């Protein structure tokens, strides 16, 4: 079985995709990730900016119109969702495997 060449995702990418399952602007996504991870993952601004640029290029997320003229709002695309599904399945399989070893 061949694996999608974009997998595995980095932890930052995985969290960004999860956060952007709802439309958010950049800083709101940083805060959402911090909340989702219970304060363990704090993505710094420059890292977030580069990651969003990269995800836009991959077309995993897209810009959506918003009433806020000063901030750009992003949302996950269909492609992004299928990547998220694939990666989640991979992580689930890993978890199951570890369970068989008693972990």
């Amino acid at each position, binding site marked *: 079985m061949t694996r999608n060449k974009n997998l595995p995702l*980095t932890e930052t990418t995985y969290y960004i995709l999860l956060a952007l399952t709802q439309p958010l*602007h*950049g800083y709101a996504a940083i805060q959402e990730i911090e909340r989702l991870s219970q304060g363990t993952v*704090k*993505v710094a601004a*420059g890292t*977030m900016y*580069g990651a969003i640029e990269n995800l836009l290029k991959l077309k995993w997320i897209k810009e959506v119109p918003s009433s806020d003229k000063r901030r750009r709002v992003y949302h996950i695309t269909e492609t992004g969702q299928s990547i998220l599904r694939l990666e989640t399945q991979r992580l689930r399989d890993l978890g199951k495997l570890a369970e068989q070893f008693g972990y």
Partner: protein
Amino acid sequence: MKKFRVFLSLDSEENWINTIQEGGYRLDWVNPYLHCYTFQELTADDQFNPYTRLDFRDKGMSRRDYQAYRQFFSDSGWRLIAGSRHGGIQYLQQKTATSDRDIFSDEQSKASVKRRFGRFSFAYATFFLTYVFVYWWLTGNINFLDIKSWYLTPGLWQMQGEWFWKAVLFETPFVLMRVAPLCIFLIVGIYDLCRAIQNGYR
């Protein structure tokens, strides 16, 4: 306080700025062409010594994109104090003592900033050095070290006395116009090449 300094890497520039800031200053403005850094002494109103961090943009941005870039960093606790939407180094300074201390939180994004910087420097080095080389190759009569060869007027160096000095004075502005850009291009080209080698240009 104004200081002039030239750096080969973003890291060394950032460290130098932050060392000065720790001595009770705040970076106020940067002229990227003259490499001139303006620092302000901290006053009683400033409640903390800020950190300044450098981002590097290799592509130009639209006005709206740059506005969004600035707004995003501002939301995250960083003020853009110098930088251009046409690309280059962006100087970001902590707005409050509680802002993050860094603008990059993983190795991957740190490496990609360095790569952008190296690649950008390499492109500029190629442009400047090619220009100087093609110019030198097409004219063939400029020797950078031989000042006499900079003057193209026939018979200039055989003239005598007053006429000679008048002719030299008259010609010098033209010579400078011809040679100065070339020298600047050569120096900037070599500087960019050193930056590219220092940061990896692939």
